[in-house]
C-alpha cells in the first residue's frame, strides 16, 4: 500500500541551529501534505501544510519544501529552540484519512 516515511528516527541539534527533518512518500497522486508536532504526553498538533502546486511554504520559523520529482518533502526549523523538542510527523491525507509517517524525534541540546 501507499506509505509515508521519514529518513531518520532521531535528530539531535544544538540550540540556535537550523533543523531539517525529511520525509518520503510513495503515492504519486498525493497532492497535499501536513506536518504535525507531537510533544511528550500530548496529541499531534498541526504545524504547516503544503499543496502540490507549491514547492515551498513558509510559516513562523518553519519552512516546508516539496520535491514532487523525487517524492520528498522536508521541514526546516530555523533557530531551533528547546521548545521545539518533540516528535515530528509528515502526513498524507488520502481521501480525508491521514496516513502518518513513523515520526522523527527532535532533541535540542542547550
Amino acid at each position, binding site marked *: 500500500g501507499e506509505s509515508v516515511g521519514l529518513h531518520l528516527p532521531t535528530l539531535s541539534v544544538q540550540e540556535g541551529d537550523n533543523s531539517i527533518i525529511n520525509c518520503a512518500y510513495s503515492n504519486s497522486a498525493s497532492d*497535499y501534505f*501536513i506536518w504535525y508536532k507531537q510533544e511528550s*504526553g500530548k496529541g499531534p498538533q498541526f504545524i504547516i501544510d503544503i499543496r502540490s502546486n507549491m514547492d515551498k511554504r513558509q510559516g513562523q520559523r518553519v519552512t516546508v519544501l516539496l520535491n514532487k520529482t523525487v517524492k520528498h518533502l522536508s521541514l526546516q526549523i530555523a533557530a531551533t529552540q528547546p521548545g521545539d523538542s518533540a516528535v515530528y510527523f509528515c502526513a498524507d491525507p488520502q481521501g*480525508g484519512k*491521514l496516513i*502518518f509517517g*513513523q*515520526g522523527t524525534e527532535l532533541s535540542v541540546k542547550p
Partner: protein
Amino acid sequence: IAGITQAPTSQILAAGRRMTLRCTQDMRHNAMYWYRQDLGLGLRLIHYSNTAGTTGKGEVPDGYSVSRANTDDFPLTLASAVPSQTSVYFCASSDSATSGSDEQFFGPGTRLTVL
C-alpha cells in the same frame, strides 16, 4: 472552547473486559477519527466517520467498533479487550468543508493498558 476531549485519560483493563473510550468535540466538525499510537509504528487509523450517522473502517479496525449518533460524540468500543490493544488512543476531528484543508485536530489521548 475545549476543542476535543477524551475520557478517560488512562485506564488499566483486564483482558476480556469491554471498554468504551469517549471522545467529544465542540467545533461542529463533520469528520471524526480514532487512531492508535504504538512505539515505532506512528499513528494508525482505526475507524472514522465523515458525518453523523456514517462510519468507516481504517487501517486497523479489528477488535474495535464505533458509532456516530450525533456530530459531537464518537465513542470507540473494545468489545473484549486483548493485550495487543495496549496503546495510546487519539481521537481527532476535521471539517474540510469549512476550513478548506484536511487539518485534523487531536485530543489529548487515552493511555490504555490491557493485562
